[in-house]
């Protein structure tokens, strides 16, 4: 156990995977000489060489497709798409090839590719560079989707994703790369496929993941000062969603707020609400609240961006509403 940043945790996992399996390699824009747009792969080129740390041209569709093809050919590629924003250019390859190949071949082939991408707003990089599209990826059969909200998960999810025989999309939160936390580099990592209770409480369930998790935990502490004990559930795996855990938490609390940075309409939070209705409707004592991003392309100005994305204050207020307060 040591202290490390979220960034270091991802790097540590990639190093461990590449040391343990010759078939694992990293490809993406500026992952090599530049050291990674967010310095995640810094040092790996020197350690593993240009054959396994591959800088690609600016061609998201093709280098992602090449990663898919390489996986079909027996490798275990890690494809880094610098940010989810650019993954829009690779969606056809991910949705029409990675996700369908196994089924439309009648089960003849699987696609063990790990596609990592940084996601989320909060860095004032404006409308074209601040997307959160986990909801879209989480809706595609054939994909598995993970989102890391803690330093340990940032490491565990890379390793779990690489062990999986299917295409896995891993969302790394841009604003969390510098976050420090405990990191156990020997820990088993198969737990990432299930949701985790990050804080126990009986009054209300705060359901979240990735970028919103730290804010949600903070909100839970704030609520606690007001005598409201919130349970914080970290979804972790966005596809498949952990239906059991979702139902279990509201069975305890009977109230829920779902926090996520995708736009309110069509948000992943909306899917969670629908699943609570499907699986635990009679357990709900109040309307489930959503705290998502306001329906606006993310503005550059800091005060506007802050107001657009989920905040501790909005989570607290929503939780209180479910309790009939304020």
């Amino acid at each position, binding site marked *: 156990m040591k202290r490390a940043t979220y960034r270091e945790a991802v790097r540590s996992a990639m190093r461990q995977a590449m040391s343990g399996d010759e078939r694992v390699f990293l490809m993406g824009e500026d992952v090599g000489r530049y050291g990674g747009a967010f310095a995640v792969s810094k040092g790996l080129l020197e350690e593993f060489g240009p054959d396994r740390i591959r800088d690609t041209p600016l061609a998201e569709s093709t280098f992602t497709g090449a990663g898919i093809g390489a996986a079909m050919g027996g*490798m275990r590629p890690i494809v880094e798409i610098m940010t989810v924003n650019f993954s829009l250019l690779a969606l056809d390859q991910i949705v029409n090839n990675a996700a369908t190949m196994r089924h439309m071949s009648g089960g003849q082939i699987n696609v063990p590719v790990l596609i990592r991408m940084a996601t989320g707003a909060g860095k004032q990089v404006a409308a074209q560079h601040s997307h959160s599209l986990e909801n879209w990826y989480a809706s595609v059969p054939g994909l598995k989707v993970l989102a890391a909200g803690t330093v340990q998960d940032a490491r565990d999810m890379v390793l779990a994703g690489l062990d999986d025989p299917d295409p896995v999309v891993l969302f790394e939160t841009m604003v969390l790369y510098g976050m420090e936390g405990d990191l156990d580099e020997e820990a088993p990592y198969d737990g990432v496929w299930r949701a985790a209770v990050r804080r126990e409480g009986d009054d209300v369930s705060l359901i979240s993941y990735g970028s919103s998790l730290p804010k949600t935990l903070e909100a839970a502490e704030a609520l606690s000062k007001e005598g409201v004990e919130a349970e914080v559930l970290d979804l972790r*795996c966005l596809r498949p969603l952990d239906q059991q855990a979702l139902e279990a938490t509201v069975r305890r609390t009977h109230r829920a707020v779902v926090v996520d940075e995708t736009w309110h309409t069509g948000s992943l939070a909306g899917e969670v609400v629908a699943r609570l209705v499907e699986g635990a409707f009679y357990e709900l004592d109040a309307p489930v609240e959503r705290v998502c991003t306001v329906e606006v392309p993310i503005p550059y100005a800091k005060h506007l961006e802050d107001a657009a994305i989920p905040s501790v204050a909005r989570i607290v207020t929503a939780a209180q509403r479910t309790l009939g307060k304020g």
Partner: protein
Amino acid sequence: MSSSAPSDRSHARTLLHQMLRIRRLEEKCAEVYTQGKIRGFLHLYIGEEAVAVGAIGALEDEDAIVATYREHGHALMRGVPMGAVMAEMYGKANGCSRGRGGSMHLFAVDRHFYGGHAIVGGGLPIAVGLALADEMLGRRRVTACFFGDGATDEGEFHEALNLAALWKLPVLFLCENNGYAMGTALDRHEADVELIHKPAAYGIPAEKVDGMDVVAVERTVRYEAETVREQGTPRFVELNTYRFRAHSMFDAELYRDKREVEEHKKRDPIALFTARCREEGLLDDEALEAIEKEVAEEVRAAVEEAEAGEIEPLATLASDVVSREVP
């Protein structure tokens, strides 16, 4: 231009036999399609048989193939049994993709046939990736990537050529130029109709060949594939051919003149090759009849196999979506 001469009698027989297997299978497909036994998109390769037969005949068995939605001929040439192909189009469990893929998604991974792909241009990055795996694993094989003239419009075509050339990967790009992207003639979808100018912009050697001349195709592709195998770098071949039938079964062919089609039919690759073989005295009526009989029997048996096939139980609807459920 007529067709070049094959090396010998057995070679002649093989080429003609393979082209006829494709032709007769697809004629039967068109027939049963009208009976509703095959549905969805059905893209016939009739008129283009010399391309798949010559090109795939020139590859090694372990070479990888990535094809398009117009791939019945490619699958047959790579040894996918005709019955499994027909059963797939019938949507039966004994189809080569268990009825999940249909005409556009024939797969035979054990034969390194990595599928029919229905997104134009979508197969190229996959081919580059397969070649990347070969290169990294030290597997000395060629990945042959088939695509049409229309695919050269798509950005992925350019990205894929650049990546293959930049990383020096053993991909053989095979452009089946039949002059049309659906109803859009080449000169209305490409500013420069000289397609081999495009690979040149990535330093990829390219040549053209008459795609109606099966022997010429075979000779050219053998040379190009061998060179890719030796040098480990990508090459490009444009195969000039023509589609005799509609683009798919939903095509009224408003965009081309019947006379144009008739003109091209004069260069039917099968007719050209048969004539040449007769001239050379390599095939006589008897031999030809024998081949037709053999093919007719194979097609009959394939239909029988497809008709007899079981359909997948509904209980398995969502099977093979992922290979492993999460723990």
